[in-house]
Structure formats: C-alpha cells, structure tokens
C-alpha cells in the first residue's frame, strides 16, 4: 500500500485516496468540430504504461482535493506530486508528458488551441 503525500494534508496511506486515472487529458468542447474517432481519443482511450505515468489522485477520505501524481507503475515510486492545472517539473515526468501520444491528438489540439498555457486540463 502506497504512501501518498497529499499536498494539503501530508503523507497518508493509500486507502485514504482514490485514483482518478490518466492526467492531462484536455477536454474538447461540443462546438469543437472534431470527428467521432478523434473525440474517442478523449472519451475512451487511456494510457496504461509500464513505467512512469502521470495520473490524477483525490484525497477522498481526507480533504477531498485533487492533485497530480507522477508514479512509476512498475516500482510504485512516486516521482512527483504537483497541483492540478500545472505540469510536472521533474525531468522524467516532463518527458513523460511531452512524449505522450496524446499531445498530437486532434482532440487535444482542439481543446487547447494555445499550447503555451500550462495544463488547464483534467
């Protein structure tokens, strides 16, 4: 069972948290004209990598706040915990963000026309 350091409450047992799956999935709006297939990338497709993964967690039995976690799915090492709406700063986690296939999807491009803006994504 992991120890996760909630940015608001400090280190706590995993049982207090809920994992919200992949982080940084930008949501296209209904009036963004993208195909069903491109929309499916947002709606259905989720990564399940062996190695570093950027994911969302919620301190569900504590402060109920969401935050991002960069966790190695093999070793369960937690590399970085960073706020919702921001990007990781550790090199490995940054690389994981940048090299994700999702960065090139039409769904993400439609949802975040200005790529200079960090995060803003769930």
């Amino acid at each position: 069972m992991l120890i996760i350091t909630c940015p608001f409450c400090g280190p706590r047992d995993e049982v207090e948290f809920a994992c919200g799956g992949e982080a940084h999935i930008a949501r296209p709006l209904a009036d963004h004209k993208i195909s069903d297939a491109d929309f499916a990338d947002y709606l259905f497709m989720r990564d399940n990598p062996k190695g570093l993964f950027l994911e969302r967690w919620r301190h569900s039995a504590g402060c109920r706040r969401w935050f991002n976690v960069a966790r190695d799915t093999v070793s369960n090492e937690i590399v970085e915990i960073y706020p919702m709406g921001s990007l990781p700063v550790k090199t490995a986690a940054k690389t994981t963000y940048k090299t994700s296939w999702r960065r090139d999807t039409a769904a993400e491009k439609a949802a975040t026309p200005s790529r200079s803006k960090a995060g803003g994504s769930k």
Partner: protein
Amino acid sequence: MVSRSAASGSPQTKPQRAVARIDQNAPVNFTFDGRSYRGFAGDTLASALLANNVHLVGRSFKYHRPRGIMAAGSEEPNALIRLGKGAYAEPNLRATQIEIFEGLYAESQNRTPSLKFDIGAINSVLDRFFPAGFYYKTFMWPASMWMRYEHVIRHAAGLGKVADDHNDPDRYEKTHAHCDILVAGGGATGLMAALQAAKSGARVILADEQNEFGGWLLGEADIMIGDCPAFNWISDIVAELAAMPNVTLLPRTTVFGYLDHNYLTLNERVTDHLPSRPAHLPRQRLWKIRAKQVIIAQGAHERPLVFAGNDLPGVMLAGAVRTYINRYGVCPGQRAIVVCNNDDAYRTALDLHHAGAHVVVADLRAKATGPLMRAVRDAGIEILQGHAIIAAYGNHRVARVEIAPVNDAVTEISGDIDHRDCDLIAMSGGLSPAVHLHSQARGKLQWDDAKLCFRPSATHEPSFNIGACNGSFDLSAGLKEAVRAGTKAASATGHKTTALDTPIVQSHKQSWRPLAAWKIPNGHAAGRGQKAFVDFQNDVTASDVSLAAREGYQSVEHLKRYTTTGMGTDQGKTSNINALAILADALGNEIPAVGTTTFRMPYTPSNIGAIAGRDIGDLFDPVRLTRMDDWHRAHGATFEHVGQWMRAWYYPQNGETMQQAVNREVKAARTTAGLLDASTLGKIDIRGRDAAEFLNRLYTNAWRKLGIGKCRYGLMLKDDGMVMDDGVTTRIGENHFHMTTTTGGAAGVLDWMEEWLQTEWPDLEVYLTSVTEQWAVATLSGPNAGKILQDAGIDFDLSPTEFPFMSMKEGHIGGLAARIFRISFTGELSYEINVAARHGLALWTRLMAAGKAHGITPYGTEAMHVLRAEKGFIIVGQETDGSVTPHDLGMDWIVSKTKPDFIGKRALARHTMEYDDRKQLVGLLCSDPSTVIPEGAHAVLDPDQPLPMKMLGQVTSSYFSPNCGRSIAMAMLKGGHALKGQTVFFPMLDGSVLKAEIVDTAFFDPKGARING
C-alpha cells in the same frame, strides 16, 4: 540434564542431554483422533505426538498416502490438523506450530473413515491413472459433462473441512502501528539486529512466528555464543530487549505480507495457545505496520531429498530431528538413517547418537571430509560415503530402506543394493533461504551456485536481509550482518549508534556447500517404482515434474499450475527449489534460467477472521437512519436497504400482506393523502458567483435564467452522454442553489461535481456542501395535502397562484422553520417539506396528527415506486444502467439544443447514438391485467422462433397498480419507441409465455391534471 522418558513412559524417548524448552512439571492432556495423550507445557502438537510414538498423522491430498511429521516449523507440508470442535474448529493447521494446552482437541484430515484405514488410499494403487494434469486431461471431454464431473471432483478435492457453524464465535482485532525499524524474524540474527537498532533509540518492532524467540537455535545443543550455551545468550538478549521502552516484542506473530512502501501485515496469535480464551483478549490480532526500514531475518528452510518413498511417516528433515531431540526432548526414532548431501546433517547424526539411537549416515558425496565427519566417525557411527537411499518402505511408518552406492553426479546406482531396517530417516538436501518477504516486496534473487540456493540480491524497498535468509548460514557471518544492518537501518531513520561487538560463536566447523543431487535414482525406468515426492502436500512426484516438462509446460509458472507444485497451505516452502531444479534438468537448462515462481502473501495461511477483525455483522458497514426512524419502527414498518440507508418499505396493518399494504398506501396517496419519509434524498448546497453557470454545464437543460424560488428537474450525464443521475434543483438565491440527487447517488454526485470544479473548471467560483443529513424531509402527497398543511399550521398562502408547482417557499409549519418545495414524484399535489434534521420527528408527528381527519397514510418506498411508475417517471439505476441516453428515455425535451456545451453534449452527437436498435424506454400492459411480468424478463417479438431467441430487451419496472386497476410495466426494448402498439412476448422459465402490448409510459393521469390537487 532432563529426561523425558520417565514422564511420558514412551518407548520413543531416552534421556536427553538438555531439554530446555518443555516443562516436565507441567503435564498437558490432549486428544488426537479420539485418543487421549499427554505432553508437556512447551510442546507443540507435533512434538507431543512424536513423544507418544504417533507418527501417522494425516493422509495426503491426492493419493491419500499415510503421512507423518516432516518438519518442526511453519514449512510443514504433511501434518495438517483440524483443531477444535464445533464452531471453533479450524482446518489445515500445522501440528508443528500448534502449542498444546490442557484439553486440546485435534483431528487428522483427509481420511474416510479413519486414518489407518482410508478408502481414498485406492488412489495410490491407481496412481498410473493420476498423472500430472490428470483432471485437465480426463474431465475436459465432453464439455457438457464437466458440470457433473466438477461436483464429484470438488467433493474429493480440497484440504480439510471448515467449521460446521459458519459463524466464527471468536473475536479478532486490528492494530495499526508505525515504527522506525521492523525486524521480521526473532532468531539469533533478528535478535542481534533488533538490539543493535534499538540501542540507537529508534522505535523497533521485533516479530517472530514462534512462541519464543531464538529461531532454530532453540533446537541446537552444540552451539555456544560468547561463553555460554546459545539458549542463555538468547534469554539474555530477549531480556535486554524487553526492558527497552522503544522496543515492541511480538512473539507468536507472523509477518505474512510485505507490500509497497514498507507496509507489512502481521498476524499475532494472542490466545490460540491458551486452554480458555480470556474475554478481554482477542483470539488473534492483525497488525498493519508502516516501517521506515525493514530487517528481514526469516531464516532458511531445509530441503528434502527426492528419493522413492520419501513421504513415509518417519522420514523427516534432519534439522527438524535435531529440534525434536534438543528442544522437545523426544527422539523420533531408535534406528535412524541420516541421508544427506551436506555437512550439516552430520550434526543430526551426533545428536541422534547422543540421544541413544542407532545411526547410519548415507552421504551422497563420495569424498566429504572435515572435523564433523571425524567427530561422527569417532562416535562409532557408520558413514557410507557416495551412498543414497534409493527407496524407503513401510506401512504406516518407514521400516526399511534400500541403500546403494551412486555415481558422483547421483544419477545412477553404481553398486549392490543393501537393505537396512530403520524407523527414522533424517534427510537433508541443503538449505533454501526464506526469501519470501524479500520477494513479496519485489526484491531480486540471485542463484548461488556454491550454496545451491536462491538468495536476495537487490532489495526494492528500504530493507536488509540478514543471516540464513540472506544465504549466510554460518552464524558468525549472520551476526556480523545483523550488526551491520541494525546500524545502517538505525542511521537511515536518523538514529546514531555504535556497532556492538559480534559475539564469538563456538560450533562445529562445517562447509555450507551441498552436492547438487536433485533426484535420486531408484534403479527403475522413469515413472516406475516407488513414488519420489517433490511436493508432499500436493502429491507431486519427480516424474510428474518431468512429465509436465515433456508435455511442454516449460515455464516454471506453467509447471506450478499444471502439477500444483508449490500450491497449498505451505506454498512449496520445502518443495519449490527441488521442483524447479528437476524441471531445469528435464529441460537441459540451468536453474537460474528457469527461475522461481512469484512469491505472494501470505507467508503462511492467515485467518480470514483476523483480516475481517471487528468489521463484521452490524459493524460491517455503517447503517444510516433517518430522524423519523423511531416512528417507522413504532408503527410496524418493514425496512429495506437503500445504499447505507434503512428506509421504511411499507407499513403493514392488521396482518396485511405486502401487496395489500402497498395497494392501500398507493390508493391513499391518490385519494386522500400519503406521507413519505424522503430524508435520504441526496442534498447538496451549491453556492458561489458561478453556481448557475456550473449547473448549466452540469445538467442537460438551461439553468441560468431559473428564477429565485423556482425548482427545475435536471438530468446529469457522464461525458459519454449516458444518464448518471437526476433530481430537482432549486434556486434559493442569486448565487445559491439546493440540489437533490438520488438516495444512492448522493456521494458519487458530490464527488463528480467536485472533480469537474477542481480539475476542469478551476476558474469557476463554486462551493459544494453535502447537506443530506442536515435536512429531514417529509413528502406530503395527495388531494388533501393542502388541507393537511393548513391544519398543521402553515404560515403562508398555498394557493396555486401564490405557490405554484415547481417553486419553493420558506416558512413555518406549526412553528418549525421549513423549506417547502412544491414538486411531485407522484403526479399528485405534493409538498416536500424540509426542516432542520433535529425537527424531523416533530414535523412527521405533527403532519400525521393534522392529517388524521384527512385520511393521511404513511407510505414506504415500495408505494413510492408504484406511484412514480404509474406516472412513468424513471428511477436512475432501475430504468437506466449506464448505457442509456436521454433520448433512449424519451426525454429529448430536457436536452438543450442551444447551450454550446454541457457534460455529455458532444457524445450525444456521436453516430452510434442514431442506431435504431438502441434500447428505448416503453410502457407495457400485460394481456392479463392481473399478471405482473417479472422484472428482468426478456422480451421477444416471436415466441415460436428457434433458440437462441432474438432478445429485444428487458422489463425494468413492473408493479400491480391499484389506481389503474391492473398491472403495469416499463421496459427497455431495442427500437422500442417505434414499436408502440405492437405485442411482445416474454417466455418464462416454466415454459409459459406472457404477452404484453407496448404503450406509453404514463399510465395514470397522462395529462398531469391532478398536479394542483
């Protein structure tokens, strides 16, 4: 010097040198298989049975072969016992770990009708027909017969029998603890490491599965530490640790799980060893420990040798024999053959000799030398070098062996076979470090080609392996590792300590390099002759392993599942290395290339009761009661669980059946008035500058322009366009809303809203508060509802112009401050009256009193369901299942076409939404008005079509409607909206076929004329 023979009167016991761990002044009486025996305090069931010359203690799993006691610890594969009686009975306990107490009651397992005569033993004669993978091969065809085979197989398979009464009367506890350093294993190295770490002031927990600390040293008579016998050194160090306030000692506690981030689970057997269990103590306690550093000192397991007949009672591990002699004062045999591939077993020969047994050593090694061999020879013990036991024979106990010279590689018999009588075989195939915890924590292993074992290499978690579990079998080396690990672990937790002196160990000089001899030849062709067992508990033989390899099961994980090697309660502690060495040999591969199977928790079987702890019965899950609960109970309500809530289901009167009660309640709500406890509805208080905008994005319909004091029904979708919840939300103020959700969905909806606010729209200023339990709600419904409110003392005008449908007013009822919502889930004139929770019961009783003259009738959730179904209102989770859109429900009217976005909007435009075979909500009228079609019944268009029929969909709600005077139902049918007016059929399990017409879902008052009373 203590002699056991005088006390027990058993021919098996002779005067011993030092019987340190039993108290011969404290006799203990116990029962095994209906016979009474006597042992002593300090005995295990195994040692006491051996002292009473009982060697046959069980039957094996598959062949029902007679089995005895092989080991002296938790690795025991054979001696599985059912302990206790009645509800207290517990199967599959290892006799080697059961401490005896006065009145202990034990039974052997896996035998019918008795241990000595077991009809299942026929399997042993038919063994040709039971090869590896027997069940897979035999019972796979024809597939239709599997159901029948399975019943018989399940009955024959399985170890032990659980208690007849399934309610465990014992109490269990759970404890959470944190420490700097957890030491797993309290043998010599664990004790040393714990002391070293504790000297730094670090918080140390030391756990050991045995009743006392000391590990295998408790069973050794020939080792001195410092200047005193090992026993004394142990008691000194334990006393020192016990006196330290920063140390917690946990004997009888198995560290059985090692999980991520140094989280470990321990099972403490608090009172299992006591004849009666004190009321203030739990039977067992589950410890959940988070340690900063872990020191693993689990020790090692001795391996059996794989020779024909090696499973007979009387064939034991050499180290275990020493333990029985030295720790328990019982010599398990008088004519012993020690068979080994290493030096260590020679110490067993010496101890047996000193205990008065006649001993012969058969050493697989042709040229072993050293001081131990000299000592054995000097004692006059015969040593046969380069010899092996090639077969052992006996009925219920080993009686004679065939010994023969073997070649250097132990692959062939190289000379004449000699027959020897014996009653004990002490075998030793070398030591396997107990790498279980290290491996559970995903530490890596490496193969040690000299010591012939896997031992830990890199650790994954912050931990250390020391002593025998690290492959350091030499005690001096282990103690040095202990000091090092103790110091390092302390320093890693911020505690400084200076290294203690490692005590001087005086013991026999010996080599720790066994000879690689995994399978001893029996002089027969493969698969012939006596069986040579690899896995004793699962009856897996050497030839089973070879056969599996020949059949293509070449991965060790496949081998395990095909042959069941390494499964069972012992998880292959004694068998795994032998099995994979034999597999490697069969594959012509190296052992490290074959690798090990995955080590998983638990290390030893752990009681489910301890894992459940107090979270059983009433404490399994919280039960939520409304403020009116007392009234419901006092008035005979029947209850149903809705989520965690207990809701009044119906109120039977004067012996009414459920149907009669519900009919009466449903009737009353439409003719006079009904009162429903609706307190369980989820309620969320929404405030903030952007509250209206937030709701606009959350719901499918428009919310910005909702007037203050107005209510609106909303559907919430997931972003895939599927309905997830519904409810009425009311604007209390410009930036203040009161949302209601379904009873079961309340927590999930709040989480859902928080998720969107925090992760997608952090720019919105909205604050959410769950107020479900702050408000008590009574829903008054029916033509007389207004009159009752008047009589109850409402302080504002109820006329429809002043208080129209879908609006909310704050006021007082009989002095109780209330929010009253004019909304309706029945289609009648209806008021949902919300008061502060503490006024809930007062509100309810006042309404009941005021309503008496107006025919008020309390109704429960069942009547609520019927009433809403009469109106065709859906229930999320009953009509919907996560694959239903608003359109499927015929609720297009609630989906805004003009809003640019809301959750689920884009998904509703996917092309799959336009498929005409989507299931859609329809009403059904059964051709027989008195028949209620069962919910879940499947609809077909043609009941005479061949099987399998084409299913149209299923009935989701179905009731008898007293107001319609007939049965009604709703269903989700493929393309249902276009089928209106058609007839569908419902083939029933009994062969009958029900028939129904597809109609609109509004069965009663379809125009909504009754809403104003």
